[in-house]
């Protein structure tokens, strides 16, 4: 049996008895796919990404990510799996007391990359996202859109196998949005499996990518 990059079998996630966020969800995403996840507010998009990222455990059902059963993952394994997954959180989750540079370099430092290489890579990524001038700023000193781009930079810095982007352009203007989508496409071309959760009809309008639509925790399309 050949597993995909991300494979969910009848996954349920309940926050409390009357509060199902994910209901009987099965999904198979192959290595190198680019998938949009959409659906109304509260549909369960973020929860789905959290399950893949192992920051929430499914109430029942199984999930395989990169060949690992996330129900049985161990502490140390989890850290290593997470290094292979880049995530743009909907609320960014930047460290407010570290500079933009340090927020981004963090993901390389935890893997023990040497400082000269870190410097080079961080500079390059920040330049790609138009943040070169903001390198020494702290997140609270940035505009919403700038923070979002720092979150994107952090997610892509170490060439993850999987990229999870939760509403990555919610705070960005149309021009930058186009640039970001091009960047995600480029990363996808290099072989990364990409999942983008979004409301934006703009993004979905002319795409040929696979679209998963959620509603009340179920896949409706």
């Amino acid at each position, binding site marked *: 049996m050949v597993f995909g990059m991300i494979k969910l079998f009848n996954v349920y996630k309940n926050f409390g008895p009357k509060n199902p966020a994910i209901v009987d969800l099965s999904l198979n995403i192959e290595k190198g796919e680019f998938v949009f996840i959409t659906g109304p507010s509260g549909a369960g998009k973020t929860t789905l990404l959290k399950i893949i990222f192992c920051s929430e455990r499914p109430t029942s059902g199984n999930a395989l990510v990169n060949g690992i059963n996330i129900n049985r993952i161990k502490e140390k394994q989890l850290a290593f799996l*997470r290094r292979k997954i880049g995530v743009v959180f909907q609320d960014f989750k930047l460290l407010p007391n570290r500079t933009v540079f340090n927020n981004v370099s963090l993901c390389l430092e935890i893997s023990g990359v040497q400082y000269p290489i870190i410097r080079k890579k961080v500079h390059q990524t920040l330049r790609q996202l138009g943040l070169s001038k903001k390198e020494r700023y702290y997140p609270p000193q940035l505009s919403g859109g700038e923070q979002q781009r720092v979150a994107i930079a952090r997610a892509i810095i170490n060439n993850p196998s999987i990229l999870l982007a939760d509403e990555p352009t919610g705070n960005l203007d149309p021009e930058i949005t186009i640039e970001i989508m091009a960047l995600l496409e480029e990363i996808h071309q290099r072989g990364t499996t990409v999942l983008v959760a979004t409301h934006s009809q703009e993004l979905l309008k002319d795409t040929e990518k696979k679209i998963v639509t959620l509603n009340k925790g179920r896949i409706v399309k």
Partner: protein
Amino acid sequence: MKTSFIKYFFRQALTNISDNRTAHLLGVGTIAIAFLIFNSFILAYVNINHWADEMGKSLTMTIYFKGQPQEIEVEELKSELINIQGVTINKFVSKEEAIRSLAKELGDKEGFLKGLNENPLPASLEIVFLKADREDPLPYNIKKRLEKMDIVDEVHYSEEWAGKIEAIMGAIKLIGSVLGGLLFLATLFIITNTIKLTVFARENEIEILRLVGATNVFIKAPFLIEGSIQGLLGGLLALIMLLAGYVTVMIRADFKIGFASLDIVFISPHIAVFLLLMSMIIGLLGSSIALGRFFKA
């Protein structure tokens, strides 16, 4: 462990300290005060021990003379004794001096001395054995030699008294250890709590680090280093305050018990280094305990 990690850990610990300067200073201050209380106790304990030791070690011997001894005989004896290693002459008490000091001791019962037709008190010479202990044979040898002399009536050696001092010292040590132990626990509690509070304030930071795939060691190490530094700084500050207090007191005051003026000693460098190390270890323990709850299975 790669050296780049170790560099990162220390750099991050220092960055954290400077980022959370106020909280860090509050922590160091609290730790310092807690240690100051503990260290003051240690200082008091060291000094009481020191005094007890001094007293215990200066065993005295009193030589009672027959009748009224000639001054020249006494001087001869004195110079003979003074040549013996470890012996000092304390004082010679003539018959007259003896009765005068007895009158003083008796206080309101002094009246009865009027009933005496002659002075029954002997003249005596008190000598001190420095650093002797109860097993030292020297005092016993000297005692034997003195008792054979014509002018000497009796020789009393304060052996029994030394036993008492030792017992008192033992009690002080016991009580001190118990009190010190309790105070140590209190200090430990205050310090770990203080560090816990500073770590809790950064729960969010720990959570984000885990989300980007940092291992436990990677997350913990800077906190542990930070805690050690905090403990060390607190301990250092406490020692400095203690020293300052000690110097102030020494300049102003002159301590006496009876007529003997007491010298107050500062804690020895060994103990100081030990206290510093201990404060560092407590800081380390404190942050380690504080981190514990974030790393449960």
